[in-house]
């Protein structure tokens, strides 16, 4: 199969199981495109991640479009964006109808009570693995820790944390 075919199939699978959004799938996607297939360097992956988290809009679709663009140009970007966006959106549409119809069913409460904490644990894990990839020195570790602590203890808009980090980076401190 062509690289584009492999990437598209892989992303369609990943987006279908991306409970909690992009963070839980980041470790697998990095492993596939950087380690197993060698299409991207870690530097590319980190750059795409930074851009996707900064530019407003659907960050997961944007990040995968950039990965696809790196693998196979504009057709790659379109295929990757489609594979990332379409399966979960169909699931949302179907899922919402079911969810709405059975809003008082007991299984819905059980599903909610068990799958929500599972998802949150996966989000923390995805962020941790991404931090391992990015944090190459003590300054970047400090930036990660500062952003996390500020989000937990203040009501600051996260854009301030990203902006502060951008200044630290532009000054050449990381």
């Amino acid at each position, binding site marked *: 199969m062509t690289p584009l075919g492999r990437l598209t199939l892989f992303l369609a699978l990943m987006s279908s199981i991306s409970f909690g959004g992009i963070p839980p799938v980041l470790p697998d996607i990095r492993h596939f495109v950087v380690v197993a297939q060698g299409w991207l360097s870690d530097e590319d992956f980190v750059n795409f991640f930074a851009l996707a988290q900064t530019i407003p809009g659907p960050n997961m679709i944007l990040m995968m479009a950039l990965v696809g*663009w790196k693998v196979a140009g504009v057709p790659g970007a379109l295929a990757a964006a489609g594979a990332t966006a379409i399966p979960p959106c169909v699931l949302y549409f179907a899922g919402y109808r079911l969810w709405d119809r059975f809003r008082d069913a007991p299984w819905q409460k059980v599903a909610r009570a068990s799958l929500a904490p599972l998802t949150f644990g996966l989000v923390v894990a995805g962020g941790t693995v991404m931090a391992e990839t990015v944090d190459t020195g003590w300054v970047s570790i400090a930036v990660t820790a500062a952003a996390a602590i500020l989000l937990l203890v203040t009501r600051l808009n996260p854009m301030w944390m990203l902006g502060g980090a951008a200044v630290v980076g532009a000054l050449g401190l990381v």
Partner: protein
Amino acid sequence: MLAHRCAVERRRWLSEAEFGDVLTLCQFMPGPNVVGIAICVGAKTRGVAGALAAFVGFAVIPATIGFLFALLLLGQARAPVVQHTLHAISAAAAGLMIATGLRLLLRRHRRDLRAMAIAAAAFAALALAKLPLLLVLAVLAPLSVAATAIWRAKAA
């Protein structure tokens, strides 16, 4: 949240409770959450056409604009300043992800040791044991649903 203000307060497409349902569902459904919320609101008000309009408005158009903007920036990515800036932003974004997960967990399940155990198991499997997500979900999702169902049956 802007989507809430628009859909519930101003346009009254959904009630407060309906919006809460949508939010819970989209938080643990796979995929881009904001797009999911928009699709659910669209589906609720206008069926398939509403869902499609939400997909175009919240996914296709912003992703296209963002992609073009990102390519412009990446054209400069070899400059050390840009490289360092993106690196630091990634470090902060990773921290924000960790904190977002922690905050959701603490807000909802602070006093629920069982939920904490499920979250800890998910974290350990993905971040420490480095297992593939598909395997983690295939094992932990049925386990935690079953455990929760049993706990609830006992409590009742």
